[in-house]
């Protein structure tokens, strides 16, 4: 279950109306993919891709070498990146908040996935909960318990650790 769908489940647990969907190229493992999630208090009134997100989550920082992940991101939005070091100088035009979490490291510590294919979904959600408050950590953990088919403990733990360890860049460095 991909992160965006789990996020939707967590939001739902909190009584929100989530809408979540992948932008589906004909995905091949390892190829970069995009997914969108909308969360609102009432049913979502649109069914289109999101071109101007409030929050961008990057699960693989290496993509940032070739792709401008902040394209469309609202000026005062949030960028959350899976990375073991602070990411800087991404986009001079971006004035929002940036946070990083070593989701890969956390996942591997929890035994999620393999070295070449770590499964970082749950860790990143923990971090997202902390940085944005859009869902609570409790809801994330409950969603994990309900919908993750295997290694529930480890996944829940990954979310919790990430929640603790996520680093927000205190100042926007240009």
């Amino acid at each position, binding site marked *: 279950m991909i992160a965006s769908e789990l996020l939707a489940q967590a939001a739902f647990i909190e009584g929100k109306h989530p809408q979540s969907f992948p932008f589906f190229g*004909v995905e*091949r*493992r*390892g*190829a970069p993919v995009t997914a969108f999630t909308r969360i609102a208090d009432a049913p979502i009134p649109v069914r289109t891709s999101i071109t101007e997100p409030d929050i961008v989550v990057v699960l693989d920082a290496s993509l940032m070498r070739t792709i401008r992940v902040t394209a469309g991101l609202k000026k005062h939005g949030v960028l959350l990146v899976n990375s073991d070091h602070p990411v800087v100088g991404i986009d001079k035009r971006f004035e929002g908040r940036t946070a990083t979490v070593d989701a890969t490291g956390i996942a591997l510590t929890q035994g999620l996935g*393999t070295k*070449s*294919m770590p499964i970082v979904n749950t860790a990143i959600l923990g971090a997202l909960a902390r940085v944005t408050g859009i869902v609570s950590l409790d809801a994330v953990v409950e969603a994990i318990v309900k919908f993750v088919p295997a290694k529930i403990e480890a996944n829940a733990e990954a979310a919790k650790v990430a929640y603790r360890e996520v680093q927000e860049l205190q100042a926007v460095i240009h």
Partner: protein
Amino acid sequence: MARLTIPAEEYMRSGHSACPGCAATLVMRYVLKGLGPNAIVTLPACCWTVIGTPFPTTALNVPILDCAFEATGASVSGLRAAADALGLADVIVVGFAGDGGTADIGLQALSGMLERGTDALYVMYDNEAYMNTGVQRSGATPLGAWTTTTPVDATSRGKGEGKKDVMAIVAAHRPAYAATVNVAFPEDFLKRVEKTKTIRGPKFLHAFSPCPPGWRYPPEKTIAIGRLATDTNSFPLYEIEGGKYRITRKLGRARPVAEYLKAQGRFSHLTDAEIAAIQSEVDGRWARLLALETLG
């Protein structure tokens, strides 16, 4: 350049969209190395439709004609007929399809092509499931393998039926030539491909094509698993020419099939008893193949 054991020319380009470690790319690469620049490839829906990269790019240095999923054999006959009618005698027509597109939905078109004796090469790259749509069972999925439509579950132990024997079906059509090939043995693979160039009539290659995500193993193991398949007699290498069987790679003693199975997540649920049953099935098929070879 240095001493290469297979031709240096590349007809498959980098930049393609296959998963890391995908053997289907090597199948294409070797087939085209063997055939050279006169090949025209007709391609039904399969992973290669995507691997080949989206419009306006293309991953081959020879033409690709996309065709309907179930119609590769017909597309092949159409291209051959056109080439003959237009005086393009040098053209080598290649149908390149997955196991689903060959053993299941495309079997009839293949059978038609074989029956009417079209002079062309049909390559089935066998990743033993519908991979392009995300790992569903095909006729060629082996007994016991997990796929999304043969779940491992209280009432279900992976695929309940055996692997469709496409080579036997093809052989029943008495084609000009048929052979099994394996990317783990590129030199042997190339020999078979080159042989098809010398024979008129319908030719068929059954190419073993490990798939890391579909078979649930790490991408670097693709060649190792290919080797194991043949070394355990799970995927023996042989050819059929004019009805005569010949095993092209004979082993002193085959390794236990368990080694092959245990290397893959799709078989990880199998019990020892189930593995033993598969072993005896493999042994039986091998014995039959040996007998067929003596039959002549």
